[in-house]
């Protein structure tokens, strides 16, 4: 019997009292939780967002968005008062959208402006967040895009350093998933949304 055959037989049956150490070690690993655990579902996109955010030169992080935001505020104040949830305007650059997110009853003083830039690799979403407090210990914030029934995570973050820009990343077209929400998530490893929405905005597809 070859080494491989003996190894395979031992792995399957565990009936060789003189098995080499590597045989028994592998069998122990096959019975171990660590071999079969799945990482959290949102982890991949969080890593993508983290690296992409750090890769972008500081000067290019949010090109001309401040000017666009001011113009939006001036032009859209009345509409914002009527449309309670959110308003989106198309920027002069058709590849960039802006969306306002309003705090829900869970974060009434919070708001955010989302700048969404289509890139060859996906939707680059920068949230300029104000008034959102740091999440309680053992929890974090998570961004989602939704199309009604389905939600896709676009990354996680905390605001423990105060108001800031947060870079998120979507692999799906924002026009297909036009609702953007931020939820408060317990740090329990459960990949599903808690449903505790703290910020919400919706793309106006018929401006």
């Amino acid at each position: 019997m070859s080494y491989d055959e003996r190894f395979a037989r031992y792995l399957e049956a565990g009936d060789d009292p003189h098995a080499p150490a590597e045989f028994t070690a592998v069998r122990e690993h096959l019975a171990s939780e660590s071999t079969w655990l799945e990482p959290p579902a949102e982890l991949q996109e969080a890593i993508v967002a983290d690296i992409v955010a750090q890769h972008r030169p500081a000067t290019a992080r949010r090109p001309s968005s401040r000017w666009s935001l001011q113009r939006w505020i001036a032009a859209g104040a009345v509409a914002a008062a009527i449309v309670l949830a959110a308003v989106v305007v198309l920027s002069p650059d058709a590849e960039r959208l802006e969306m306002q997110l309003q705090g829900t009853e869970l974060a009434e003083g919070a708001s955010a402006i989302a700048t969404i830039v289509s890139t060859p690799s996906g939707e680059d979403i920068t949230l300029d967040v104000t008034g959102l407090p740091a999440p309680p210990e053992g929890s974090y914030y998570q961004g989602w895009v939704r199309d009604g029934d389905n939600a896709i995570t676009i990354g996680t973050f905390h605001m423990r350093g105060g108001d800031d820009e947060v870079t998120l990343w979507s692999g799906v077209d924002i026009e297909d998933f036009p609702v953007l929400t931020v939820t408060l998530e317990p740090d329990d490893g459960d990949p599903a949304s808690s449903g505790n929405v703290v910020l919400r905005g919706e793309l106006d597809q018929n401006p």
Partner: protein
Amino acid sequence: MLQVNLRPHDRWRPVLGSVLAVLSSFDRRDGGKRRTGLARRRPAADPPESDDAALAERFAAAEPDAIRQLYARFGRPVFTVAFSVLHDRALAAEAVQMTFVKAWRATDSYDAARPLAPWLYSIARRTAIDIARSERRHSGHELRETDAPTADHAMDHVWEAWQVRRAVDRLDPREREIVRLQHFAQLTHDEIAGRLSIPIGTVKSRSHRAHQRLAHVLTHLREEGAA
């Protein structure tokens, strides 16, 4: 060696320096009798994959698809390494994220002539150990004792965990489920057949093939043990 331009990341250097110093001390230590009786694991047995260099180059450029591709290939094994060190899912997830970010920052140290797997494994292990030590410092002895590996046998165990996870991930999903139910859930072939509603002959044939593949993929563990 890949030549990529990355921003300096000075805030990580003290941490990495201290971790590397600790790891160097392990190398100088007399290992004595180890749990498996194997020689020191050397993370060089992963076969190089043809697109490793190209993937590393795209990863260095922070291409989202490349990051996802690297994560799809190594995310689970990195999580296994982190959990093997930290014994805590949340900390392990944190370690996985830090590992990929550190790897991205360190792509200029990656040798394109070598496989990605052992390079990433080394970063994952160091990151998990660093978190374990940090947790110990901040939580006190009575809280979340993480049992960080501080001996050669523990290092062997983590390296084996990485290898076994990679081998399991390469199995056909149907065969992998048989192996999981047999070893982790401790079910018999009869019970697996009932659980999956498939004939017992199918369970036996898939189990046989799966274990043959595992033995073939992991046969290098013997060579490492003899090194």
